[in-house]
């Protein structure tokens, strides 16, 4: 049931707003829209010479799940390159039941979304935007 969907961990992630906002001088930016629900994410990153993330900012016009996911992602992203972000994506997919295995924190918090197919894209949208920014 959805009361469990909005369990405290997810609400706390969204409220933490880790990495929320624009970066002043991003190396790359990307925007992703979900045409079904109208959610929109813009991700800015700064990168070092090896393509590792040194700074990240996100602007989310979307639901709580999308905001929480952007927050979780920002808390993990610094120091990671595209391969490292792909690993985080697997974690997110495990959390929402699309891949086998247990997810690590903070994405483990998204486990209740496994039972809500129509909301899974909300969790993945920030990861899609970041993938585009790194591509």
């Amino acid at each position: 049931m959805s009361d469990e969907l909005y369990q405290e961990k997810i609400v706390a992630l969204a409220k933490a707003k880790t990495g929320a906002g624009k970066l002043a001088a991003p190396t790359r930016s990307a925007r992703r829209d979900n045409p079904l629900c109208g959610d929109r994410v813009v991700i800015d990153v700064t990168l070092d010479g090896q393509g590792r993330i040194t700074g990240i900012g996100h602007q989310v016009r979307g639901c709580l799940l999308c905001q929480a996911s952007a927050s979780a992602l920002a808390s993990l992203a610094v120091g990671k390159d595209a391969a490292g972000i792909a690993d985080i994506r697997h974690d997110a997919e495990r959390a929402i039941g699309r891949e086998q295995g247990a997810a690590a924190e903070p994405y483990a918090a998204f486990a209740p979304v496994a039972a809500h197919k129509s909301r899974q894209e909300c969790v993945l949208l920030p990861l899609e935007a970041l993938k585009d920014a790194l591509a």
Partner: protein
Amino acid sequence: MSFDVAGVRRQFPILSEIIDGKPVHYLDNGASAQTPLAVIDAVRKYETTSRANVLRGVHRLAERATEAYENARAEVAAFLGVKPMEIVFTGGCTAAINLVAYSYGQLLKAGDRILLSELEHHSNIVPWQLLRQRSGIEIDMIPVTTDGRIDLGKLPGLLTPRTKLISLAHISNVTGALLDVKAVVAAAKGVGAKVMIDGAQRAPHGPLDLPELGVDFYVFAGHKAYGPNGIGVLWAKPELLDAMPPFHGGGSMIGRVTFAETTWAPAPRRFEAGTPPIGPAIGLGAACAWMRGLDWTAAHDHEMGLVQRLMDGLQKIDGTQILGPASLQNRYPVVSFMLDGVHPHDVAQTLDSFGVAVRAGHHCAQPLMDRFDLDGTTRVSMAPYNDTSDIDALLAGVAHAAKTLR
């Protein structure tokens, strides 16, 4: 006489279901309404006693099917106050608008203008954009007032001698505002424009008198009017139907086919190529008969009482705002609101855990969302079978979302 809502509810089997331990508080009628036993029985009767194709066979099942199909056309016509042969069955409301955009659109020339409004459903925007691509017509737009009504004060300035058609929603599927159709018809006459009304949200609230409204085209969807899916209606003045070329080609819509030339059947057949959705049409006929049997003065008062209860309740929850008319005048029971700091999808998801079904998002009206710089709204849309327990469950859910999600 007060309205017997319990009696109405008993006719809708789904309303007494318990799903995952929760009752069904169905407030998403603007997307699809529920269906009464009268409709379910009519469709079942066709499938079990009369199933055959229509207008093709001489055997008795075909005769029965044809009779039931044509009776359904007559029921729909009676519901709209028009003649059966002016009713075209389509696959839905969207399909009906596309039919007009294609067939009536064939009669238009580059530079002719079509006038829409800022609050139209995408299905009353995109078919005209496709026509614009095909034939170079122009599209104009009537803006919306701050309380979510089509701003008819702007209408005279937007009409030109090249305006051939004005196509507007009878009731907004987002704000619930009722259009003053007669004012539009009067203004259209001044420039010789036709008027099409998208009645998707109006048909579910009782019979109409189209000749009295004075419109040229009227469309609606069966599934929003307590009927089955896959059926919709186009009504048009007979002289317009006569002038319009076909949309789809195939069986039933022809006079005579040779490889050199084919002649068209008269309306409505001309616009019903191929085997129609027979069962759904019969179901819609039953839905129209069911609606004609209801006391809509009492039903409307009942629905608007629920709107008042909803508005009063929302006002007590901090940070709620209604998108649409605040007064109950010239409005119908479709209410959109925003809850400060909580995304509409999160409101709707929370409501689901209270057993309350609503719609959240842009409601296929993105230009209207842009007008108010909104990502979306939460929409409560009612039917005569809704009661105070539905509204109270919804208000409890919104209060819970306000408390826990921000």
